[in-house]
């Protein structure tokens, strides 16, 4: 079989970021190859909780997050599917005065930076928004227009749109080595090699390995993050629920199931490619959910799973060019909040590659911030 080996850009990693970058590049008529070691969206991209949140986001990420949210509200025009997007809002509940103070401090901070997307509500307004909370909340910080989408559907839609636009995707074989020949990078995968002047590293939890191949030092720790999902139940709640100080995080999906998460740790297997569930962690989460919503105690948990995510020391992603003039770009290490950013990351990387600049300040996301 004759295989095309020359591309404009090789994207390493077929998760959501990789597919988003590829499809945006394809709009610019770039010839793009995605190399995916496993299958597209198999890891964090496809198995995360699906929350779309500007609420309580690290301030450095807010500009990107705001732009991404705009794109989510019109996601169908980007990928031809609504990706299960539901703008139900997100709330961060306070149970006592201390929580309230934490949330008010946060609200103050973003207000001073000129943002207006987060707003404090009182107990009564909270009860109106989340009747099921009863008298177990004294107020909340909310963000209207936030919400959630379906990660599996999203990955599928992004991949299909990328393919429609002519992106080539190779799945099932990872990158074993890369080397620079004159203006070209040669990327080795399985028995093949591909050439392109530009490489984008979207390898997620394995992004540090790819960065190292390109000579860029980074710092990334793999973590297994677990979720549980319940049987379907009649619709009882709209917004995505979080909490100021407790590990409470869940949403009711459109199909009626509850997806419960909130930084629950899973267990990474020895090969670092698979995960196990740590039920003592799940127990704690179940206790919290039951203490806030006691009527959920008879709701069956049908399935738990965990995905693998790459966490940076400062929990900020690595976004931007590698070594000057190298033709390598990075977008990885999203530290468990990359799902919402995916649409804008594609645009930012495309701007960097095609125009050499972007409207966003990427200073906080530089890869060389980890240099010793």
């Amino acid at each position, binding site marked *: 079989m004759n295989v095309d080996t020359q591309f404009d850009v090789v994207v390493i990693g077929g998760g959501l970021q990789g597919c988003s970058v590829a499809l945006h590049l394809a709009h610019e008529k770039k010839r793009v190859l995605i190399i995916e070691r496993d299958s597209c969206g198999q890891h964090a991209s496809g198995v995360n909780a699906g929350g779309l949140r500007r609420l309580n986001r690290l301030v450095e990420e807010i500009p990107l997050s705001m732009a991404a949210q705009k794109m989510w509200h019109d996601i169908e025009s980007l990928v031809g599917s609504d990706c299960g997007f539901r703008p139900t809002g997100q709330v961060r509940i306070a149970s006592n005065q201390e929580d309230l103070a934490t949330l008010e401090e946060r609200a103050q901070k973003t207000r001073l930076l000129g943002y207006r997307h987060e707003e404090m509500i009182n107990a009564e307004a909270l009860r109106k928004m989340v009747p099921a909370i009863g008298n177990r909340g004294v107020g909340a910080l909310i963000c209207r227009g936030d919400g959630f989408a379906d990660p599996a559907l999203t990955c599928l839609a992004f991949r299909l749109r990328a393919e429609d636009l002519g992106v080539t995707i190779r799945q099932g074989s990872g990158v074993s080595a890369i080397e620079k020949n004159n203006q070209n990078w040669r990327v080795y995968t399985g028995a093949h090699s591909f050439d392109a002047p530009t490489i984008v590293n979207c390898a997620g939890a394995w992004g540090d390995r790819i960065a190292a191949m390109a000579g860029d030092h980074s710092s990334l720790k793999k973590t297994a993050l677990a979720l549980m999902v319940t049987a379907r139940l009649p619709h009882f709640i709209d917004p995505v629920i979080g909490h100021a100080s407790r590990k409470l995080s869940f949403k009711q999906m459109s199909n009626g199931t509850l997806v419960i998460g909130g930084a629950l740790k899973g267990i990474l297997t020895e090969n670092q490619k698979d995960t196990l569930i740590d039920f003592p962690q799940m127990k704690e989460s179940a206790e919290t959910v039951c203490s806030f919503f006691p009527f959920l105690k*008879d*709701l069956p948990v049908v399935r738990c799973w965990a995905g693998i995510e790459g966490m940076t020391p400062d929990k900020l992603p690595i976004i931007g060019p590698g070594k000057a003039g190298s033709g390598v770009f990075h977008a990885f290490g999203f530290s468990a909040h990359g799902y919402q950013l995916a649409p804008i990351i594609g645009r930012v990387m495309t701007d960097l590659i095609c125009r050499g600049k972007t409207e966003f300040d990427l200073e906080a996301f530089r890869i060389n911030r980890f240099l010793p």
Partner: protein
Amino acid sequence: MLKRLHENSDRKKVTINFEGVQIEVLAGETVAAAVLAAETDYTRTSAISGVHRAPYCQMGICFECLMEIDGVPNRQACMIEVREGMKVNRQHGARGLSDEVSV
């Protein structure tokens, strides 16, 4: 849908409430079997299209026998034996919460 072979065996009779009607069944029977022997042929309606379903495997594999037993939904009726005074209802569609929830 099912028939008892020996209605008059010396097994204890037990009364359960199925869909608001008292029915006499025999001790040792599973809830699924007891209900299917009571001239009914379905035990739940499906979660998505709402069609009638009945137990398929009778050994806890297929989850077609999910019913509401003593107010708790999603119970496997083929794995649970009848008990005097038990309240059994068909499970209609997706049922996650116990009884009526006051939220």
